[in-house]
Every structure is written in structure tokens, then in C-alpha cells.
């Protein structure tokens, strides 16, 4: 039970008033930025990185835990109250939640999403607490070729599954790998692809690439096709009584638990992240809805409760491979790794030994953050609604400014800000032509690690390539690529079909209301 005592120590750290304030600050700012339309969890963390530059490691990690959960949480508010779906993981929530809001049940939708996020987040954090140390212990025994195999698995699943087109995902991954090559080769000290620019000798900063792709690229892309005119936010009724009626509770609690059960395992494997989890949960709820089945597509509360829980559970699941193997499986996870690295902390199997107190403080702050979120957010909905109405020209100008500030504050070199713009332009074209940006960030972070593992493996085996595949674990990993990608692509195709179906449903509803208008 030494893990339990370690966790208690983590709680003791987080319970210090100063750290509690940091946690509160993290969840608050995370939610506030996550609520802003067009800003997903990955961009939230990327934009808020500079906030932590001057904090000590523990405080920074606590703030990040808050931002991570808060950002996830803010996204659902956006999709329920705003008229278009935004961040991919909460699109399913948007479908049902938005319908509910239009029926005047926005408060119930927000409440079931909030409570579901809390339930799922708490259970998933418990699971993380139990699974991660075991996994880390096991991971210590893995050899160099095993890690290389794991990274190949991550490359291929991330490239193939984190986008709509496999070939474009691979292009994005390869671009990321290329950016990862830039700089001085760690083993031989040779400069590679630095084009004689001194700023590139230490390699390109992942922070600049992440902020460039997510913040600047996104702002430029939205600017190119900005929706002008007033912002329509669906009003939410005030007062506590209307939040959740007894029937809403009855219909929500099972989807919360089922969503958690689906979300956590999906989050732990590299299979496309929270998207897949939310979709699976939605499909499950629809199948099990029984007499409420015909409500789906028209504002079924199960369709908000399940996917939203799955989303949050997956977010915690993602932390398992991240903390124990150092393997980021989503763009958000990749940026968290960057945040760790900026403090000289390398996530991986040794993390639980070398940085034990830090890790447990992180896990404890996840519990605390989750609790704060539900206390903070249900009463503050009115404020988030105001945030949603922020004029878009100021919103995107602000994103550009904070992106520029973040990369300037890295080294206080204007050249970095110029590089940021170049990466932003690349991100703009990628978005415009349907290339996913997430594999690029993951590739850039994992690329150098993979090269390192590969070269060390081959040094051990004195050039014998068969060494890479002969360990049982590595062999299993390579075989599992086929299974995971096959399964993932099958899920994606089902997702597409279901989406088409949902769109048709939406169309029908609209036609109905139109014909009624005519009468």
C-alpha cells in the first residue's frame, strides 16, 4: 500500500494553501480559455504555457492539471450553447446538447455534462492511480527495441487515426518528424537541417511549433473565413431547480458510468484519442436507449451524459501511457510532455521513481481540480455564457498576441516569433487542405526519442536489425499495429456513417419546422 501513502503525501502537498490557489487558478483559467470558441484543450495548454515559466515545477504541474481538466470541461459548454460544433471530442455532445438547449433544456444539458464529467473524471483518476504505478513497474523492464516498437505503434496509429485521411495524416507525421530532425544530433554533435541559422542549432522548440500550428494557424484559418455578424448564444434559464429534474438524474447516471467504462480504456491505448471514445459511447447509448430511442437526434439527455463522461474519462486514460511510457497519444498529451520537458522532467517509467512526489502531487491535484470544477462551474455558467459572446475580432487578435508572447518569452528572441509565424502559415495551409495538425506535433516530439532508441538498439546488437523484432514485446507490438489500425479505421467508417445519419435527422427536423411555418 505504499502507493496509497504516496498519494496521501501528494494530497498533503496540494493541500498547502498556496498550491490550492494554484489549482484553483488552473481550473479557472483552463475553463475560461476552454470555453472560448475555437480553442480546444491542446491550444488552451499551448497558449497558457508561458503562464508557468516563472513557477516552480510542482506549482506548474498543478496549474497544468487544472488547465487540462478545465479545458476539457470548457469545451462542452461551448458546444452546448453555441450554434456550431467546435473541438472534435465534444461534437457528439454538441449534437444532442445543442438540441436540448434549443428546446429550453440547456441548463439540464450543461448540468448532466458537468456532473458526468465529474463522475467520470473522478472514477478515471482512481483508475489512473491504480493502473499507472503497476504499468510503470512493468515498463521498467522494457528494453530499447521494445520502446522503439511502442513508438512505431504510436506513429502509425496517430498518423492514420488522428485525421480524416490516412495519407494526409502520414504527411503531417512526416513533417513533424522532419522538424524534429532539425538541430544538433545528440550522439555525434553534427548539425542537421539547420540551414546555417544559429537559432536552429538547438533544434526547433516544440512550444513554438505547437503554438504556431494550434494558435497562429487556427487564427489565420478562421480569419480567412470569419463568420461575421453577432454571436448567437442560446440563453440558459436561471435558478437551481431547473438544472436536473429527478427524471434527468434517472436517465443520466447509467450513461455516466458506461461512458467512463468506455472512455478510460480507449484513452489508454493509442487509437485516436477522445474522439473514438465519445463516438463509441454515443452509439452505445443510442442502442440501449429503449423507449427514449426516438429522442436521439432531437435532444436526448443520454446523448450528452454518456459521450461527455467518455470524453473526460479518456482524457485521464491518456495520462497512463503519457506518465508511464512517455508516450503521447493525442496532441494535448504531446503538449503536456513539452510542459514537463521545460522543467527537465522526462515522463517515462522512471518518473514514478525519480520524481515520485511530483507525480503523486499531479495525481492528487487531478482529484482536487475535478472537485473544484464542479463546485466552480455549475454556478458560474452565466459567466461562461458572457465569455462565449466575446467579439470574434478581439478573440482572434488576442490568440495571436498570446501566441506571440508565449514564443517570445521562451528565449526573448524576436526570431522565435518570426519562426512562429512561418509555422502558423504552414498550419493555415494544412487546415485549409485537410491535413491534421495533431500528428505533426506528436511526430516532432516522438521523432528524436525514436531515433535515439533505434540507434541505441542497433549499437547493442552491433547492427543486427533482427534484434528490433525478436523480443516478445516488440513482436507483439508490431502485430498489434495491424489490429489497432484495422479496428480504428473500422470505427472511423462507422463514425462517418453515424454522422451522416445524424445529419439526416437534423435535416428532417428542420424540414418539419419549416413546413409548420408555412402552415
Amino acid at each position, binding site marked *: 500500500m505504499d502507493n496509497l501513502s504516496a498519494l496521501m503525501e501528494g494530497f498533503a502537498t496540494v493541500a498547502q494553501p498556496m498550491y490550492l490557489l494554484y489549482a484553483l487558478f488552473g481550473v479557472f483559467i483552463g475553463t475560461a480559455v476552454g470555453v472560448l*470558441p*475555437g480553442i480546444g484543450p491542446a491550444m488552451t495548454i499551448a497558449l497558457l504555457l508561458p503562464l508557468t515559466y516563472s513557477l516552480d515545477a510542482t506549482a506548474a504541474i498543478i496549474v497544468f492539471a487544472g488547465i487540462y481538466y478545465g479545458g476539457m470541461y470548457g469545451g462542452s459548454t*461551448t458546444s452546448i450553447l*453555441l450554434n*456550431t460544433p467546435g473541438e*472534435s471530442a465534444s*461534437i457528439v455532445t454538441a449534437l444532442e446538447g*445543442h*438540441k436540448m438547449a*434549443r*428546446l429550453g433544456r*440547456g441548463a439540464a444539458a450543461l448540468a448532466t455534462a458537468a456532473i458526468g464529467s465529474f463522475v467520470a473524471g473522478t472514477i478515471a483518476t482512481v483508475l489512473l492511480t491504480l493502473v499507472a504505478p503497476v504499468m510503470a513497474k512493468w515498463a521498467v523492464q522494457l528494453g530499447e527495441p521494445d520502446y522503439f516498437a511502442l513508438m512505431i505503434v504510436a506513429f502509425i496509429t496517430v498518423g492514420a487515426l488522428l485525421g*480524416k*485521411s490516412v*495519407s494526409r495524416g502520414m*504527411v503531417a507525421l512526416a*513533417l513533424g*518528424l*522532419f522538424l524534429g*530532425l532539425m538541430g544538433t544530433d545528440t*550522439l*555525434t554533435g553534427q548539425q*542537421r*537541417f539547420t540551414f546555417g541559422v544559429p537559432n536552429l542549432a538547438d533544434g526547433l522548440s516544440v512550444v513554438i511549433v505547437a503554438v504556431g500550428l494550434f494558435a497562429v494557424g*487556427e487564427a*489565420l484559418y*478562421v*480569419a*480567412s*473565413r*470569419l463568420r461575421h455578424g453577432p454571436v448567437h448564444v*442560446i*440563453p*440558459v434559464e436561471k435558478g437551481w431547480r431547473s438544472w436536473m429534474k429527478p427524471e434527468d438524474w434517472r436517465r443520466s447516471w447509467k450513461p455516466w458510468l458506461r461512458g467512463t467504462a468506455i472512455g478510460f480504456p480507449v484513452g489508454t491505448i493509442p487509437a485516436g484519442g477522445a474522439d473514438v471514445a465519445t463516438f463509441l459511447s454515443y452509439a452505445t447509448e443510442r442502442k440501449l436507449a429503449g423507449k427514449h430511442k426516438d429522442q436521439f437526434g432531437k435532444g436526448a439527455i443520454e446523448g450528452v451524459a454518456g459521450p461527455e463522461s467518455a470524453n473526460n474519462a479518456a482524457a485521464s486514460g491518456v495520462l497512463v501511457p503519457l506518465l508511464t511510457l512517455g508516450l503521447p497519444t493525442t496532441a494535448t498529451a504531446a503538449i503536456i510532455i513539452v510542459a514537463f520537458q521545460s522543467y527537465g522532467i522526462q515522463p517515462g517509467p522512471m518518473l514514478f521513481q525519480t520524481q515520485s512526489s511530483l507525480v503523486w502531487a499531479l495525481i492528487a491535484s487531478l482529484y482536487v481540480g475535478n472537485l473544484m470544477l464542479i463546485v466552480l462551474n455549475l454556478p458560474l455558467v452565466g459567466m461562461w455564457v458572457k465569455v462565449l459572446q466575446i467579439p*470574434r475580432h478581439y*478573440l*482572434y*487578435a*488576442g490568440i*495571436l*498576441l498570446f501566441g*506571440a*508572447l508565449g514564443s*517570445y*518569452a521562451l528565449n526573448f528572441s524576436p526570431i522565435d*516569433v518570426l519562426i512562429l509565424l512561418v509555422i502558423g502559415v504552414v498550419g493555415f495551409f494544412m487546415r*485549409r*487542405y485537410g491535413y491534421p495538425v495533431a500528428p505533426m506535433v506528436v511526430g516532432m516530439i516522438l521523432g528524436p526519442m525514436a531515433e535515439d532508441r533505434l*540507434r541505441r538498439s*542497433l*549499437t547493442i546488437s*552491433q*547492427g543486427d536489425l533482427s534484434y528490433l523484432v525478436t523480443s516478445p514485446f516488440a513482436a507483439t507490438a508490431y502485430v498489434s499495429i495491424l489490429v489497432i489500425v484495422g479496428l480504428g479505421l473500422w470505427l472511423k467508417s462507422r*463514425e462517418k456513417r453515424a454522422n451522416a445519419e445524424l*445529419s439526416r435527422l437534423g*435535416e428532417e427536423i428542420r424540414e418539419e*419546422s*419549416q413546413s*409548420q*411555418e408555412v402552415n
Partner: protein
Amino acid sequence: MSPSSVGPPGESPAPGGASPQVATGRRADPRGQDPVTEEVPLTGGTGPSGAAAAHTTAAPRRRIGEYVVAGVTVALGVFVIVDAGTIVVPGSAGTMGPRAFPYLVGGLLLISGVLVLIGLLRGKFGEEDDGEDVDPNVRTDWKTVALLGVIFVAHVYTINLAGWPVAATLLFGGSAIVLGARPWWRAIALAVVLALVIQLVFGGLLGLSLPPGPFLEGVSLFRG
């Protein structure tokens, strides 16, 4: 996921539509005015027709852009492979020197770029990103993008020249005006306030060494 789930505005129910759902929605509206129906029913709506239209009728210019991007990827792949050959391999390098991985990366760029090109030739075009604030029914506004780029570059060059607060005012105010903030002086005023607040919080309180510039040099509050 339902990328163009936004229908042409013309198809939306007119304001004040009288479906039963709408009636509930309006009753719940505390502000009374501004009926819920006024917004276009964007979520989950329209799907198939809208999506199909967006793809089959992709403007020829867009298609050229697709080929250019894929072509650049292939070219970059070739460049990486060629340039990898010029990386110096010191005698101390082990079994696998500094060139091998770049060759693999170049190969991946080349192959994936060619795969996208083949897809394009077979009519598989990319799906544009969607987002809350993206209007799928308007043409790309290149002028705005270019202006934002110019403002950004100007920001980069003013940081050391006039200090971070001035550069930040330029970036925020300029971008907001380009994106449609009116009246312009309000955007500038907001930008000045925001820049000074950030300089104060990050430079003065958190200790990031943002250069205050010649105008604020004397104010110790702003110095990082």
C-alpha cells in the same frame, strides 16, 4: 466529423418560426426578445447535401492549391534525402550514424506525398477544417490573411525597437481592426490597456524580461 454541418443560410427557418420546440425555447429565454429561432440551425443540420456540394464543386483554384501542397511535400522529401547525404558522419559514429534516420524521414515524406497526389488524381480532395467561427459559405479572404501576416512581421521587428508594449499594441490593435473591430480607436485603446496590463503582470510581477521600450524604460513597475 460532419465537416460542413452548416447549411446555406437560406434554408433556415425564418425568424419567428412556429414549431412547438421553438415555442419552448422562447419561453425559456430570459431576455424575451431575440427569439432562439433567429439563428441558423447549424448543428447536425444539412449534412449530406451541404457536404457534397462543398466537395464536388470545389473551386479550381482550391484544387491547384491541393496539388501544390502535395507537390511541396514530395519536393521536401527529395530535399531531405539529398541533404541528408551532406551530413558529416564522424568516425566515432556507431553502427547507425546521423544520416540514417533522416533518410527514413525523407522517404516517409516522399511516399506519403506521392500517396496524397495519387489520391488527388483519383478525385479524393481534402476536407477543410471546420470550427465554431468558420463560415463554410464564404470564399477565402486572402487579403485579411496577408494583412495579419504583415502586422505580425511588424510586431516582430518593433519588439526590440520600441519595446514589447508598443509591439503588442500594434499586433492586437492591428489584428482586431483587420478582423473587423469598429470603431478603430476603441480597438487601439483596448490594445494599449491590454499591452500595459500584460507588461505589468508578466514583466513586472512574474519577472519575464519583456523589454519595456524607450517610453516606459523609466517606470520600474514595468521592468522585468
